């Protein structure tokens, strides 16, 4: 990294910053209950940001033997570039979150296969008609940043990812269920995830009708994670700076129900997105975003922090959307790490028992296409169960949920569960900790 900085400085640039990334990954995939493939990925690359004549240039390469080509490309872009408005990082004291796990490093392919095979066997033991898939992945990453201002550091990170899921087709009705884990440590409860998959099939195997209209909805932690994509964008420094976020200019104001406290925790032990520093060398941290419903902080990279007169929060990431891999070609911009919400008073069972009629919403399809930045969400109920007298009575299909997060989560929160569960986003990976949330008067569209 130092060498790249030196080469750039030798070409007369005023400032330089290098990001280095290496990812070693092993993937085991099962399809229709059988081992399908074993894959290995070895990827490495570097990104260079430099400032020449006050203007910012950027280039990346996976051809690490051609450093001159990298510098040439960055210089070519700087010639047309934007005047730089922020500084690269200086040396800083870095946190030391727990992000490497020797158990992940020591995992063998045989062990990974065994975890998938055991989970598949559990699902098939319940119902052999379920077309069962499973995948296990192990990642070992090395990430480094160096700047001309004296920041130079790298860290190692491991990740373990596990998924088991099934597709049950009865007639022309398809029921997809699945559960997964992703984290920097080997923390998956494989049997528990298989049990969750089975339980979801059991509870969703019968289809029931629903009448359209406003109803009480119980959101599972997974559904909360999807709907909070709205809040993830709302506090994003980029959306705030551009005035797109409805939260622009509202620091210190009450935005959500007073029972809602949310943190972006980039140093949480075992968190999938936890790290020592972000992709521009800012120490990662725990940032309270909402406290008692009051907006406390935005999430920023170095540029938006400078612009908003806000401290950088260590969220300048080259995130490949929603997964831990790095999109080298992307410049760092504000991205969430691990979100954590405080639990409420009552256990989940008790909340459910108090619901006369409603819908338990677990998985929403298409939510990513809604106008999330405005707080609007909408999607097909991919996995949702009708609730009658405190109990789920069958699956609701071909229906949609819609709403605005800044209205519903301010005015319509009935209760928040005591339990807080680890979940990914959009049915995939990531580690966020959310409770079950009961909302009243949520719009459900359906036939009839």
């Amino acid at each position, binding site marked *: 990294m130092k060498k790249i900085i030196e080469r750039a400085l030798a070409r007369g640039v005023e400032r330089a910053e290098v990001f280095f990334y290496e990812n070693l990954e092993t993937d085991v995939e099962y399809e229709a209950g059988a081992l399908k493939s074993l894959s290995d990925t070895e990827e490495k690359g570097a990104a260079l940001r430099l400032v020449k004549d006050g203007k910012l240039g950027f280039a990346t390469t996976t051809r690490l033997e051609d450093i001159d080509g990298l510098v040439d490309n960055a210089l070519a872009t700087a010639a047309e570039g934007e005047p730089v408005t922020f500084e690269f990082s200086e040396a800083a004291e870095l946190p030391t979150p727990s992000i490497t796990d020797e158990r992940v490093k020591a995992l063998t392919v045989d062990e990974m296969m065994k975890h998938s095979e055991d989970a598949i066997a559990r699902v098939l033991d319940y119902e052999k008609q379920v077309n069962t898939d499973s995948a296990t992945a192990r990642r070992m990453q090395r990430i480094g940043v160096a700047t001309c201002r004296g920041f130079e550091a790298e860290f190692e990170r491991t990740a373990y990812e596990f998924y088991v899921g099934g597709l049950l087709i009865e007639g022309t009705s398809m029921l997809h269920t699945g559960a997964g884990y992703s984290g920097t440590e080997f923390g998956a409860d494989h049997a528990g995830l298989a049990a969750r998959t089975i339980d979801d099939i059991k509870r969703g195997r019968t289809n029931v009708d629903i009448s359209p209209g406003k109803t009480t909805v119980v959101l599972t932690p997974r559904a909360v994670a999807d709907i909070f994509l709205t809040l993830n964008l709302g506090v994003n420094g980029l959306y705030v700076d551009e005035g797109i976020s409805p939260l622009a200019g509202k620091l210190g104001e009450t935005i959500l129900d007073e029972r809602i406290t949310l943190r972006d925790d980039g140093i949480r032990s075992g968190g999938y997105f936890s790290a020592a520093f972000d992709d521009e060398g800012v120490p990662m941290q725990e940032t309270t975003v909402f406290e008692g419903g009051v907006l406390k902080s935005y999430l920023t990279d170095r540029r938006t922090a400078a612009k908003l007169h806000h401290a950088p929060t260590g969220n300048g990431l080259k995130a490949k959307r929603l997964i831990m891999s790095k999109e080298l070609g992307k410049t760092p911009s504000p991205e969430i790490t691990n979100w954590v919400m405080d639990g409420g008073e009552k256990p989940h069972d008790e909340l459910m028992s108090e619901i006369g009629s409603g819908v338990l919403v677990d998985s929403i399809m298409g939510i990513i296409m809604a106008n999330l930045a405005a707080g609007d969400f909408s999607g097909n109920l991919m996995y949702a169960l009708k609730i009658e007298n405190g109990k789920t009575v069958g699956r609701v299909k071909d229906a949609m949920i819609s709403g605005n997060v800044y209205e519903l989560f301010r005015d319509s929160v009935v209760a928040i569960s005591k339990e807080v569960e680890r979940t990914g986003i959009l049915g995939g990976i990531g580690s966020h900790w959310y409770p079950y949330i009961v909302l009243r008067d949520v719009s459900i569209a359906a036939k*009839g």
Partner: protein
Amino acid sequence: MKNRISEVLTKFADRCDYLEVHIEDTEESRVGFTGNRISELGRRVDFGGNVRALYKGGWGFASFNSLDRIDEFAGHAVDQARIVGHGTSQLAPVEPVIADVALDVKNDPRDVSLADKVAMMRAYNEQVLGFHDEIITSSLLYFDRYRRFWFGSSEGAMVYQERVDIGGRVTPVASRGEGSQSYSASFGGSNDFNVARGNEAGVEEACRVALGKLDAPKVKAGEYAVVVDPRLGGVFIHEAFGHLSEGDNVYENKNLREVMVLGRKFGKPFLNVHDTGLDKGYRGYLVYDDEGVPTEKTYLIREGELVGRLHSRETAGKMGERPTGSARLIDYRHPPVPRMRNTVIENGDSTFDDMIAGIDLGIYAISASGGQTNGEMFTFTAADAYMIRNGKLAEQVRDVMLTGNVFTTLDSIDAIGNDLACHDGGGGCGKAGQFPLPVTHGSPHVRIQNVVIGGE
């Protein structure tokens, strides 16, 4: 490079049933504006490859950036395949292709300077920001990629291909302080830089639509008759049917194979759908797929009946069907899987006026901000929409997300227009962690009855 690939194939082929090597060299330029500043301006060089081995039905795969260690990766892929394989390898037979596909472009984006690309996007940005006070910011992106692919297989195929992929969008964002609304003008293509130029009329329309949405009420939830425009029709067929036609979604699932049996009726006799790699100039254009199989035009639905599927060699082999040249990968980090190219609903004989004239209360849904499917159910979002009242277009509405079910919605198409248009946007299709793959969609105006729409 070809010699290096041949050496690897020769060295390791006898330890497996089938071996292939894919090497790729990509150069990309990107120019983005957000508000009044350049938000993205970069050049990317991405060089790497993969080796994929098949042994007794099991796959081993290794991807890498260090070409000098390719033997090590190849050996590893073969070892892995030998761990996985306990059955029979079934690849549909193809004639091994030996070919060089040189670039055939009208205007090569590499001949245009970065300064000119920045100036072009800056002009669009100024058009957007100067359009109206209530356009508070913008989001623009232009990219071009020049890619070289080398593919060799142990069956003797050796294909070298050069491809260009160009795309972008111009998105005005309008707001009055509480929530924002946007609409995109987008462009894309595979053989002409000029698709990026001359989009001023589209940009102006995007500004007008985004501003209009500030005054538009949210749609009321319910079940409506919907007329979709050609852009949304394309996304609709991609999500509603295209993905379910991909062989890998079907081949290992006995129950789904029974449901998706060729000859099953999905729509009315005037519904015809194909997916093609042959349309030059579109982003979904392909000469050979990433298994070295010549691409083609594949009928998926003819006269309302399922007649074909999109296959890789393996899914075709396992289903006893024909490979269709549809095995594609987004880059060397991934193996090829069956994907769409340019998916098209063919022309019918209705006119737009006929279609809306028959609707008392419905929605005219225009362009798409995306779509998603889980096989049976799908959703897609209209980027712009208008109510249809008493057979006439009425007020603009917003937040129109539609959902449907493949087993009922296709059969609810009761009119197809005669104004087919294909469209390339600057995005792409995502599947199995591989996003964004360049694809194209096409459709005429289409009327669909009884569509569930989410809303207030």
